[in-house]
């Protein structure tokens, strides 16, 4: 059950995308998100979607797995779509027929509303898919290495970059452990007749207590033990530490840079010189 949580999980295969420099992937993600937000028309989003689709194909992560990440925000997507369909105030006509298709009290379904909410849905889905692609194709370790490397300039203002990266990688490392632990405790309480995940909201919240308390206790215990273990091995912060895996920029990265920089530039440009404006 908990193992179905797929958002943010690494998918272990070898591929072009997996092999890219994590720093690059992070920068791309940021660039991509900016591009998606700047996009003002379907064509621009379409280009983003096409590039993303190509990236998925090259990464050899199954499409079903990627779409499962969308399932997590399905409610949000539907909610956004509904709000916009009913309340969007535009009057533009996109196809033959009345601009206002339905009017009922304050609810108003217009052609423009339908088009606009479709646009929002596509945008949301793209956002989730591209960020989950980063985590699917990058190991948590590579990810934090990348972030640490990107944040290096902040060291000049005495920002504890290394410590931050360490905290992140420990947190990421502990997610599967804690998920396992949750499952174990849930099983133990289910075996004692706990009714988890059914009944009304109040019963549900009450049913969480027998799981949450042991889980918190075990999290604290683990944190303590980890701290002791690091201490025992004389771990001491960022200074003079060397890396086991050095990040290197390779030819694939160059290919990636050129390709994606082109797309992002194109999409940004389309904001100022729209082709088919909404």
């Amino acid at each position: 059950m908990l193992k179905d949580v797929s958002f943010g999980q690494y998918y272990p295969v070898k591929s072009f995308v997996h092999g890219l420099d994590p720093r690059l992937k992070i920068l791309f993600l940021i660039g991509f998100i900016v591009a998606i937000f700047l996009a003002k028309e379907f064509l621009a989003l379409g280009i983003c979607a096409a590039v993303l689709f190509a990236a998925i194909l090259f990464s050899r992560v199954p499409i079903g797995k990627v779409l499962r990440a969308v399932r997590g925000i399905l409610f949000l997507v539907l909610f956004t779509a509904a709000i916009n369909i009913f309340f969007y105030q535009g009057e533009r006509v996109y196809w033959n027929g009345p601009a206002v298709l339905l009017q009922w009290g304050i609810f108003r379904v217009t052609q423009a509303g339908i088009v606009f909410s479709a646009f929002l849905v596509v945008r949301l889905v793209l956002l989730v898919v591209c960020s989950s692609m980063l985590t699917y194709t990058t190991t948590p370790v590579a990810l934090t290495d990348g972030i640490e490397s990107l944040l290096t300039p902040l060291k000049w203002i005495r920002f504890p970059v290394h410590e931050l990266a360490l905290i992140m990688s420990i947190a990421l490392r502990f997610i599967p452990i804690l998920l396992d632990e949750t499952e174990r405790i849930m099983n133990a309480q289910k075996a004692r007749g706990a009714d988890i995940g059914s009944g009304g909201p109040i019963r549900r919240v009450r049913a969480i207590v027998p799981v949450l308390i042991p889980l918190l206790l075990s999290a604290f215990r683990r944190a303590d033990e980890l701290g002791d273990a690091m201490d025992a091995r004389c771990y001491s912060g960022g200074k003079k530490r060397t890396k086991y895996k050095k990040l290197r920029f390779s030819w694939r990265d160059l290919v990636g840079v050129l390709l994606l920089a082109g797309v992002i530039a194109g999409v940004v440009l389309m904001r100022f010189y729209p082709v088919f404006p909404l």
Partner: protein
Amino acid sequence: MRIVTEHLSYIYNERSPFATRALDDVSLTVEEGEFFGIIGHTGSGKSTFVQHLNGLLRLPSALKRRAKRGDTVLTVGEFDLADRKTDLRALRRKVGMVFQYPENQLFAETVFDDVAFGYKNFADGKPSQEETEAAVRDALTTVGLDYEAVKEVSPFELSGGQKRRVAIAGVIVTKPELLVLDEPAAGLDPLGKQEIMELLHTLHSSWCKTVVIVSHDMDEIAENCTRVAVFAEGRVKYVLPPRELFKRTEELLALGLDVPLTAKLTLALKKRGVEIDSDFTLEDFAEKVLARRRTC
């Protein structure tokens, strides 16, 4: 409760790169009244098997099973777990499950509340205060704790061994007919281990007619079990009484499993030409050796 399994297989994370076959065509029967042992390496499928016994892991639906050619059978007492409509609550009331390090599942403010948790969950309707008290008192006394002394104490203030007792009390409070324990003595000192095993024997002769115990400790298994199943790579290698099983000391060692001290000694003596036929409990072994010395 009689446990019957036939052709039971289980795959974790099916159809993903993480897929691992935890159980592979497991068939075995545990008779009512047995003190049944399960041994095997970590990852041999012991825990996965045991979790099937009270429906924490389910068989795939009948439809999927037919598609996969399997004719899996899994019944625990009168409950048919291959049937999706089985009343899991009724099943779990009768099948107590003590997980590894059960003290990690304690959560309530007082020992009383924690032990009463299972009782209240399984009761039909709301049990009266007297009924609950009687059941909790029974359970705590059975595990060897002083009811009056511990009932108002926070479970987190107790010692490790006491915590484990409270956790076990929280499982047996419904008087299950089948008690399944995963490494009940792990992490305890020798005295603590012995006390837990004694407790299990007490339970076996009173409430829980059938006991299934998963263990790494071969001495524990040799001393206590009527029969033992050996799991390796998701399959059942042997199902034998300890007396028969530990005669195969060399095969067990080849599987990477440990054997009881007595079995090691038997093997060493055999290599020097001395045959000792014991049931591998320490007492019997010592007696047989003494008897042997007298005849020489």
